[in-house]
């Protein structure tokens, strides 16, 4: 069965290593914070200028001056640091952030990503996504495998304006986990009960399947 959003987030959380600084994008990536494995300490970076982002505030304790990059009210933790937007992206570009998790509209089998614009229709802007994908050494993209029309979002070539080129290393969808390799999307794990054939049928880009592909543990 295809993964739900929380299961996707949970699988991503297993990629976290102790001591990581992590930037979580808006949407499914934000949910990753709810699934950090015990014994693993990570520090969340929010690109609007906060290192050490805490949970949502208790009701009545919201502070308009303390939000995350998704404009949600958040809290500080002991050891948090505040900084301006230039310093925030300095640490991102200098690759001090160990892992970046973000959503996408399309990914191509050479690692290109499109996530910020549907020409003539949806033009919200790229926010910090272009800086993040151009800089991060370790990027996980998470998204649904297909769009609402059932069309594959894992493509030979992105049809939408790009956010970054050749930068995506790993993708998690509701159907499985993939590594971007020179030969294309390499399927490394299947969602429980989802067949390789189903994934092949829903993947427009080059798909690499080697030997037995194990089922994802959640």
């Amino acid at each position, binding site marked *: 069965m295809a993964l739900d959003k929380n299961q996707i987030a949970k699988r991503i959380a297993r990629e976290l290593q102790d001591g990581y600084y992590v930037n979580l994008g808006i949407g499914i990536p934000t949910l990753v914070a709810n699934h950090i494995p015990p014994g693993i300490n990570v520090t969340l970076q929010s690109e609007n200028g906060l290192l050490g982002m805490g949970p949502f505030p208790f009701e009545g304790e919201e502070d308009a001056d303390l939000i995350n990059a998704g404009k949600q009210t*958040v809290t*500080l933790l002991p050891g948090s640091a*505040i900084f301006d937007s230039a310093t*925030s992206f300095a640490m991102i570009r200098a690759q001090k952030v160990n892992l970046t998790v973000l959503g996408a509209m399309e990914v191509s089998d050479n690692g290109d990503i499109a996530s910020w614009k549907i020409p003539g229709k949806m033009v919200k802007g*790229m926010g910090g996504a272009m*800086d993040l994908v151009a800089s991060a050494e370790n990027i996980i993209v998470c998204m649904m495998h297909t769009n609402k029309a059932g069309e594959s979002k894992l493509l030979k070539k992105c049809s939408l304006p790009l956010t970054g080129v050749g930068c995506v290393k790993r993708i998690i969808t509701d159907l499985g986990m993939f590594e971007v390799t020179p030969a294309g999307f390499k399927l490394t794990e299947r969602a429980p009960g989802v067949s390789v054939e189903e994934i092949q049928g829903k993947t427009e880009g080059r798909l690499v399947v080697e030997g037995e592909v194990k089922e994802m543990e959640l």
Partner: protein
Amino acid sequence: MNMDKRVTDADAALKGLKDGMTLMAGGFGLCGIPENLIAALARNGAKNLTCISNNAGVDDFGLGLLLKTKQIKKMIASYVGENAEFERQMLSGELEVDLIPQGTLAERCRAGGSGIPAFFTPAGYGTEVAEGKETREFDGKMYVMERWLRADFSLVKAWKGDTEGNLVFKNTARNFNPLMAMAGTITIAEVEHLVKPGEIEPDHVHTPGIFVHRIFQGKNYEKRIEQRTVRKRA
């Protein structure tokens, strides 16, 4: 020392602002925006403005107020997804829009306030953001050359400021404010608490007074929250 930069209020602070000028406005979403100055701008009525700000406010608050009055000719921002009127004016072609990566926007403002006319960043390489711009390889990676941004007026909001113009920001209301403060020919700071010189520790100053030309204590702060997210007490 002893340079008193106080002006009476937001309206007085905008003295010299003219049609067609370029403005920067600090803030991320509605967090840390110069509320009093934006309201004064709407009263002022200056037209054909180029506005540089990370976002464009919401329909009835922040820079959204100036979109309503059609005072903005061009908007330079990184994310404008919260504003329906903005989207309408942009798609209809009434409003010129330059969308640029958030880190590039921050660095271009800092560059403008640092006498650095151009720099290289990896953001946007290979995308439409890099179209028409010089690209270059350094140490095996490709970069885009970006130019500084400067403004005729920079409008910033701080938590505390002294009469010399030294500013202190609170939590994530800092964001673009210190960078835009650096890049203004005339920088105006509105503060929640205007204090005497000596009341701010020199080591705690976020924006040294040399970058600020006019300062006043703002009033009636609404500080609207866009996404009120909370948890229940256990």
